[in-house]
């Protein structure tokens, strides 16, 4: 563009200066690039990467705890010469450490969506060539991926440890695969629930408490009532009560289909028929949380 900084002809009193604004003629990276950027930025943000040192502490600490527990289990399995498999099943690992996973969701889901809402920066995202569906999918995907890293990494450590200890390859691979499917389901479910609660309570602190309430309080309530149902001899009710909290839902699905041993009182999870109901409820919750998020972002005012 040549610099023809001339003046438009007109009356002497008024003239228009060309101050050299140019139109952009580079490559336009487009919608999918913006979506990918939002995804990777949210995923990194969940572990505190690209944020201040202080905000790296908690997610890294929680991730470290998960991996440390896995390493200890591997070390125990290697030290004991008589063992033929790991002392903890792949599928049980996430159930045991659900408090850590819950804290991760509770601290990072509000970080991912509430700050955008609180500081009114959502309109800035939508001034880019992304649509509502891109924003929701990127945030949902990033949170689920972050959770998959958190829950999958220790399983990989367990698997590698099991192979190094020369446990049966076919068995270990099968169990490892089942464990990964289970944690993938768990990640998507927890990410959906966490993001919905965080998007509905943008106020600092309240989002964290609300996510914990949804994940942990329901588990506390369900396991208390399950324990009572078990001791009073109504074992049939135990497996149906598991439908009312996220972690027992995952427990039920993996007991029915993924060869896990249930953590329900009495160790009797749902059978295949009840398992289908469990799976349907999980899928409905995931689809529901996607729908709620889409609805939440339909109108985000300035």
């Amino acid at each position, binding site marked *: 563009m040549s610099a023809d900084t001339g003046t438009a002809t007109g009356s002497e009193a008024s003239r228009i200066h060309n101050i050299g604004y140019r139109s952009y003629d580079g490559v336009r990276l487009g919608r999918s690039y913006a979506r990918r950027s939002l995804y990777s930025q949210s995923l990194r943000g969940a572990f505190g990467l690209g944020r*201040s040192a202080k905000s790296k502490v908690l997610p890294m600490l929680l991730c470290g705890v998960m991996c440390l527990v896995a390493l200890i289990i591997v070390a125990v399995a290697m030290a004991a010469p008589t063992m033929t498999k790991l002392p903890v099943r792949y599928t049980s690992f996430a159930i045991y450490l659900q408090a850590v996973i819950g804290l991760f969701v*509770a601290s990072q889901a509000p970080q991912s969506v509430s700050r955008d809402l609180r500081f009114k920066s959502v309109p800035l995202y939508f001034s880019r060539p992304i649509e509502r569906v891109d924003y929701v999918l990127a945030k949902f995907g990033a949170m689920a991926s972050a959770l998959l890293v958190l829950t999958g990494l220790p399983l990989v450590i367990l698997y590698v440890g099991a192979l190094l200890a020369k446990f049966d390859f076919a068995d270990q691979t099968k169990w490892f695969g089942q464990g990964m499917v289970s944690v993938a389901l768990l990640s998507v479910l927890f990410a959906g629930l966490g993001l919905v609660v965080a998007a509905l309570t943008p106020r600092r*602190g*309240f989002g964290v*408490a*609300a996510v914990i309430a949804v994940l942990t309080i329901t588990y*506390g309530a369900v396991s208390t009532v399950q*324990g*009572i149902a078990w001791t009073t001899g109504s074992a049939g009710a135990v497996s149906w009560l598991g439908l009312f909290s996220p972690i027992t839902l995952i427990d039920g699905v993996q007991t029915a289909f993924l060869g896990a041993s249930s953590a329900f009182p009495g160790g009797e999870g749902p059978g295949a028929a009840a398992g289908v109901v469990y799976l349907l409820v999980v899928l409905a919750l995931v689809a529901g949380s996607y729908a709620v998020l889409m609805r939440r972002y339909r109108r985000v005012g300035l």
Partner: protein
Amino acid sequence: MYDPTVARLTYRALLGRRRAAILFVLPVLLVAIAVAVRAFAGADDDVASGVLGGFAIATMVPLIGVIAGTGAIGPEIDDGSIVYLLAKPVKRPTIIFTKLIVAIGVTMLFSAVPTMLAGFILNGNGGQIAVAYTIAALVASIAYSALFLLLGTVSRHAVVFGLVYALVWEALFGSLVPGARTLSVQQWSLSVAEKVAGEGLVTSDVGLPLATVLLVGVTVVATWYAGQKLRALKLAGEE
């Protein structure tokens, strides 16, 4: 030491609009569970003790304590509006003390009342269980409020740290490492309940004298230190 205006503002911040919803949901859930269990299993002392100890004292009271304790001061420090309060001729320890009283009141209201109600629904106060757990909830409310109010003045991530204490320390480590139970508000309050309830229905790992000393000590020190922190409060930007 008590300033009615600060108290009124804190009440409105805690119970205003949708914020109180989460405070209402938990007690309603507890009472609903109590009704369901009573219909399901009938009146039974062990069952009642299990519900009240496992759900009310172990999860509900700490969570309400976190919300009320940090919510009494956290949001104000967070959005910077605390400066208008600090600029008034009110002593900083007075502000903390007033907010503590409000937080204790709210926690007691939302934890002890439903606990008592659930206890009466579960077994009609057989073996003094309802009263014992209500007293435990009242005692725990005081200590939790003071503790989490201090966290609210110290850290911007007070809710997370409060939850880490309540969930990871008290629940997870408390069940794995016996020593951790000595340093747990939950066990201190249970030791008070132990004195009230009938034989062997409520158990605590801490003796009553030690528990009383620790409860009073934690409350007083936390309140004093929160006052000191507020005297030298620095307002920081977001992250």
